[in-house]
């Protein structure tokens, strides 16, 4: 009920500072994401991905999920993008503009994406236009809070996830190491 009460005194035309910040960062994030998927320069795409992921980290911060924000920065920006860059280089991706970065499927992809976007945005806006997030009160994603709920309620999935990561680690090594046959051939 308090949401409804808050809703009565808030509106689209009177954005708060957090909302303005969220909007601006969101636009930057979206722009970076769009550039990521459209740029002709492959390495630039990875760098623009850094911008988009960093923007998302800021959005997490604005949503008071501090721990996730730092995890985002650490894992995505710090490791995943580095991995991707390594992948680009190991596959000898061309440096500079490559005219064939997009496949012939582009127009079908665009149609599907725009249709999906239209449908999703319409549904989401239609569903949540009267809903507000109450960001007041104690931070909901501080490291303390996160640690508490993660190790109180989510211990078992957490541990299972560690096994998954181990399996992924082993699998990645097995897949990417050169086989004995390859060595003999070289």
């Amino acid at each position, binding site marked *: 009920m308090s949401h409804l009460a808050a809703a009565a005194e808030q509106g689209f035309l009177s954005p708060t500072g957090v909302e303005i910040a*969220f909007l601006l960062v969101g636009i930057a994030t979206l722009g970076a994401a769009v550039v*990521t998927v459209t740029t002709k320069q492959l390495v630039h795409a990875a760098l623009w*991905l850094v911008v988009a992921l960093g923007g998302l980290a800021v959005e997490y911060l604005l949503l008071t999920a501090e721990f996730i924000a730092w995890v985002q920065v650490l894992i995505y920006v710090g490791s995943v993008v580095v991995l991707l860059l390594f992948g680009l280089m190991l596959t000898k991706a061309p440096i500079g503009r490559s005219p064939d970065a997009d496949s012939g499927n582009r127009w079908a992809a665009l149609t599907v994406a725009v249709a999906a*976007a239209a449908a999703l945005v319409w549904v989401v806006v239609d569903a949540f236009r009267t809903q507000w997030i109450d960001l007041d009160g104690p931070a909901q994603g501080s490291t303390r809070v996160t640690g508490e709920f993660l190790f109180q309620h989510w211990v078992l999935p957490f541990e299972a996830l560690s096994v998954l990561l181990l399996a992924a680690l082993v699998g990645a090594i097995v897949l990417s190491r050169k086989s004995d046959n390859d060595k003999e051939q070289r």
Partner: protein
Amino acid sequence: MHLAYPAVLAALLFCTGLYGVLARRNAILVLMSVELMLNAVNLNLVAFDVWLRDTLHAGQALTLFTIAIAAAEIGIGLSIVLMVYRNRGTSDVDKLRDTAEGRAADDAASALADKAAHEAAQKAEAAA
């Protein structure tokens, strides 16, 4: 904060990633687009978690798990791409058409030709 902002941003990011997955030729760029889509979902999870004030914080926990799984996925995915590249001499998704009906033989032949050309170029580079 209005709930529509993160929700719409997540939807748009998701669709951007979707476009990337469908339109990008290089397999690593496709993986990047997958990351974008995963992050859009993460944003949704966090936003709704905050909105609902969930006592278990299921949204944030799942976000963390998703990030971990994404890291694992990107590792496995990259190693697969590397192996494909090593075997085929290319990491272009639309050249891997071995399952095509009828033209499979031609494509396999052209892929082999591509690989041969690629290796020739490699040798030329090494010589230079």
